[in-house]
């Protein structure tokens, strides 16, 4: 009876929310008030997939949903921003019959790293993907090892972990799992033998803190490692990117499945690989996965083209408080090689909370912009001066840097001088402040992974 009521109320609020445009977690919040353990009594389909980690959750979930739907499965999955317990309850209960049976073939959940343990108290995913653990929103997340300790108690008995073998910290979760399936990438032409970046979180073993040796790095601390103390090392992978060509935007998985990339970036390759692994594990054939990932174009607007004054531009969404996300945008700009100017905006550090905390600027590898193709760098927003100080500690010539804190005045300046291309790097929290000053252009590029 309580189930009946919880589902009914959840669906009702969900419906009303649709009319009034309210947030997605309210129905679940109310349902949990009526019946706190309601999720423990839901009848789930045979496949319940959860995805967590610092970067790539949303892209992995959306891509996986696309592939599963393309092969005819009914997928219940959550969108960005509803990845805590109330959000999960809203999603699941509004997809249930009044007796509490999920009307779908697969439940696919993006779960917040810190809240997964509360969600999986009531039910267990069959497959639990952990993408990576990187420095992300340290103001609320503490640090990657702290996040590790939050995720660890969320791992239920019987669940198959699907882990990124190339991340030494993520790999430690295998010790707590009944079964682990590994994904990873072999050495590629773009892999490096030396670590690149401002900080190196893979220098010492996450288990015993002895120095680690890397055969190669793909980015940050992601690569092939071995601890000189306890022997912790990259596991043999079940799902493997055996070849990757960033210029041709093509990868090969397990030596036989060719996939065309909508956006050519190392991070995107990992999202595709995680998607491939999990779809295969729930019974989709490799060929079907490859074909349908190939047809997938990220639709979350993380890359947008625009016109500003005399320039065409490309907006590369990055996340404040997430240096890897910034680094990936800066790498993209540096690698494109064509003459350009770059706009970096840091105005509101977060959409959700007020903070003046900008230590993360020091974790970003701004030195990447010290290349001949980058003709000018505009720094803007409330924290423009702090950005300027940060960049003054790189070797970028000072006369290439223009600091204009006022975003509107900056756009006037950047739009007046002709550059080959204008790249804008900022976060969701500052996106519209900039794009509202520009004229949108049709997107030719699929999207950018974060």
């Amino acid at each position: 009876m309580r189930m009946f009521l919880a589902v009914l109320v959840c669906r009702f609020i969900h419906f009303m929310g649709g009319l009034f445009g309210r947030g997605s977690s309210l129905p679940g919040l109310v349902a949990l008030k009526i019946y706190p353990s309601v999720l423990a009594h839901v009848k789930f389909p045979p496949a319940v997939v959860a995805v967590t980690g610092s970067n790539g959750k949303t892209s992995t979930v959306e891509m996986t949903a696309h592939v599963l739907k393309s092969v005819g499965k009914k997928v219940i999955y959550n969108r960005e921003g509803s990845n805590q317990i109330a959000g999960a309850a809203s999603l699941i209960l509004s997809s249930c019959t009044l007796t509490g049976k999920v009307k779908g073939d697969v439940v696919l959940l993006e779960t917040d790293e810190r809240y997964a343990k509360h969600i999986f108290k009531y039910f267990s995913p069959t497959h639990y993907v952990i993408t990576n653990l990187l420095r992300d929103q340290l103001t609320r997340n503490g640090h990657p090892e702290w996040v590790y300790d939050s995720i660890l108690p969320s791992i239920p008995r019987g669940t198959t972990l699907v882990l990124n073998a190339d991340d030494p910290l993520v790999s430690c979760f295998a010790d707590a799992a009944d079964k682990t399936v590994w994904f990873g990438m072999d050495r590629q032409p773009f892999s490096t033998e030396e670590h690149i970046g401002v900080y190196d979180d893979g220098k010492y073993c996450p288990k015993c803190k002895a120095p680690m040796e890397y055969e190669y790095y793909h980015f940050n601390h992601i690569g092939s490692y071995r601890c000189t103390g306890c022997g912790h090392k990259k596991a043999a992978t079940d799902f493997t990117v055996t070849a990757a060509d960033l210029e041709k935007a093509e990868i090969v998985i397990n030596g036989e499945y060719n996939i065309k990339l909508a956006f050519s970036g190392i991070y995107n390759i990992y999202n595709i690989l995680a998607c491939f692994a999990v779809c295969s594990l729930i019974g989709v054939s490799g060929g079907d996965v490859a074909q349908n990932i190939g047809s997938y174009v990220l639709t979350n607007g993380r890359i947008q083209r625009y016109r500003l004054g005399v320039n065409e531009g490309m907006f590369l969404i990055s996340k404040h408080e997430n240096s890897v996300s910034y680094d990936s945008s800066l790498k993209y700009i540096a690698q494109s090689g064509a003459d350009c100017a770059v706009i970096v905006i840091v105005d509101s550090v977060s959409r959700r909370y007020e903070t003046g905390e900008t230590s993360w600027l020091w974790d970003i590898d701004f030195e990447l912009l010290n290349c001949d193709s980058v003709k000018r760098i505009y720094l803007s927003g409330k924290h423009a001066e702090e950005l300027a100080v940060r960049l003054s500690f790189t070797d970028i010539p000072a006369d290439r840097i223009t600091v204009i804190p006022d975003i509107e005045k900056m756009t006037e300046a950047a739009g007046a001088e002709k550059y080959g291309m204008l790249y804008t790097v900022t976060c969701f929290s500052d996106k519209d402040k900039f794009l509202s000053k520009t004229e949108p252009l049709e997107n030719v590029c699929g999207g950018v992974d974060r």
Partner: protein
Amino acid sequence: MKLLHLLYDFCNLYGDYGNILTLARALGESANIRRMPLTELSGELDFTQYGFIYIGSATEKNQRTALEFLRVYRDALKAALDNGTVILATGNSFEMFGKELTEASGETVKGLGLFDFTVTRSDERTVTDIHAVFSGTKAPITGFINRCSAIHGVDSPFFEIIDGIGNTPDDKREGIISGGFYGTHIIGPLLVRNPELAQYFAELLR
């Protein structure tokens, strides 16, 4: 002027390295930064050769490991302080210099014992912006705290808090100054955000 960035690759969580770069810039061309990784903490080390030693924030696990490595050099660090070296320890690194540290589990380990304060750790993190007063600067200090511990038994704090929390949640005094030792739980590039504080240390070293 020789500056030492102690455990630059191990206690380096929140862009802390900006602190020593900023101080070196304030000191001018005479400043010379030596970066010492964890793996170089072996054999005889003479810390008295440095005018300034900086150490930054670490994960709790790294901090415990760092503490064991530094324990061997407890007397060498003490000798440097007695000899006039200034030490700045930010984030949880300053906790290592106290008498003891008690984990949330109840486990207690000895600190380096250079000072009498004690540290208790919990499973909850406290994160907050802080504004504080320091006697050595005119402008208030701004910074950020991100910690899972409380510090007890400090008589001579670094800062008086205007907004935010001090050494314990109900204490308005933050950090410690004792002789040439400056400890604060403020994370990140504190000297970048507070140029007057960078000048204060530069003056101290001139």
